[in-house]
């Protein structure tokens, strides 16, 4: 009798376990893209007239950087120039003392993660007090790498002379699955400028 019941429960249990899910596997590449923009609320964009842009993309990978100018990099730089001109800025050479400068960076970060159990953060919330956790070395780890585009607008007109920095008056991050694909360059660049109407000076 009891044996029959055990089988019954086991089947029910298997049925529940098989309901595994990946809620974002049906996202299209375009839908996967995330655009994040920030700007300096104190900056008056009307004061800037001219801009220039780096001649290649800075590639930062785990805090080591170099430059690159592949086809997609050229596409990105060209599209940014087009969008800036459409907003009313004049494109000049870096030597012509532009009011703003644009940096384009491709960043890849690799993270090491501890496999998360459902109970971790509950107890994590309880055992606060500034202590980290020491995980035994037989716990599971996995590594994730994430890449994203970072576009920054620097204020060359009002440099901070005290600590010798140029203020970042606008930046944009593009994250998601399609960011390395030339097909999505126009969509990406148009979107980050499109959600930043305050940049418009004409």
């Amino acid at each position, binding site marked *: 009798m009891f044996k029959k*019941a055990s089988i019954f429960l086991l089947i029910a249990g298997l049925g529940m376990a098989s309901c595994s899910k990946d*809620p974002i596997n049906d*996202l299209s590449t375009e*839908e996967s*893209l995330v655009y994040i923009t*920030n700007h300096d609320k104190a900056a008056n964009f009307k004061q800037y007239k001219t801009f220039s842009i780096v001649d290649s993309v800075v590639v930062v990978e785990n805090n080591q950087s170099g430059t690159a100018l592949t086809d997609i990099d050229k596409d990105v730089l060209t599209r940014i120039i087009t969008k800036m001109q459409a907003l009313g800025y004049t494109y000049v050479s870096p030597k012509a003392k532009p009011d703003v400068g644009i940096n384009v960076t491709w960043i890849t970060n690799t993270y090491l993660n501890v496999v998360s159990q*459902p109970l971790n953060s509950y107890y994590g919330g309880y055992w606060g007090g500034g202590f980290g956790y020491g995980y035994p070395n037989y716990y599971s780890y996995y590594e994730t790498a994430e890449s994203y585009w970072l576009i920054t607008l620097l204020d060359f007109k009002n440099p901070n002379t005290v600590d010798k920095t140029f203020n970042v008056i606008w930046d944009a991050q593009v994250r998601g699955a399609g960011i390395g694909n030339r097909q999505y360059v126009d969509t990406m660049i148009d979107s980050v400028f499109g959600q930043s109407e305050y940049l418009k000076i004409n």
Partner: protein
Amino acid sequence: MKKIIIAALFLAGFFPAYAQQQEAPKLYTLPSPFERYTHYLATARVVGAVPLGSFADSYIDKSSFRNASISIEWVLRNSPFSIGGEIGSTYFQKRIPRTLYQNGEGTISAVQTRTLSQYPVELFGNYHFLPKTSLIQPYVQVSGGISILDNVLYYGTLSSQHQKIAPKYGIGLGSKFLFKKDGAVGVDVRVKYDGTAYKHDYIEKGVSSVNGSIGLFYRWW
């Protein structure tokens, strides 16, 4: 004519005999073991859930059919009550088309995928309205326990996750339908309100839903 008379006589003789036929006398008149003993009853359910209230308004209003539960209960002897435990899995999900979100000073443009998984672990008590010999056994249920919550909000492919164990409770109305009298197997139908005291981000006033389930049960002693 002769034939009809014979047939009429035959029927006249047959019907009274049929009407007078009685049930064979019972040699053993013991009640069913399910009446005599406290017995076990296990139920596996598939559940459809409809979000309610502020949870539906501010986070996910889409119904979910990817839920299930299993329960085991002790049906008490000489009592209309049964008590037991139930574990389950419920999952809500909603996709929001690309929208601009203000996050502090920043602006995020993304397709949001909102998800909430719950793994409730509960104790419950049932009150049955009809005796255990009945083929149909309607009941009311009160339950309480905890819910292990996994709240994952996706912006595109980026995710922000929040996990917590929160108290939960439920009130249900259901009925068991036995396939045969004194049988061991049957169908269970239940409608239940579930509430979980959980607040995070978009979820400001807890998670509530009404759950309709259909299940199979097996009982033994």
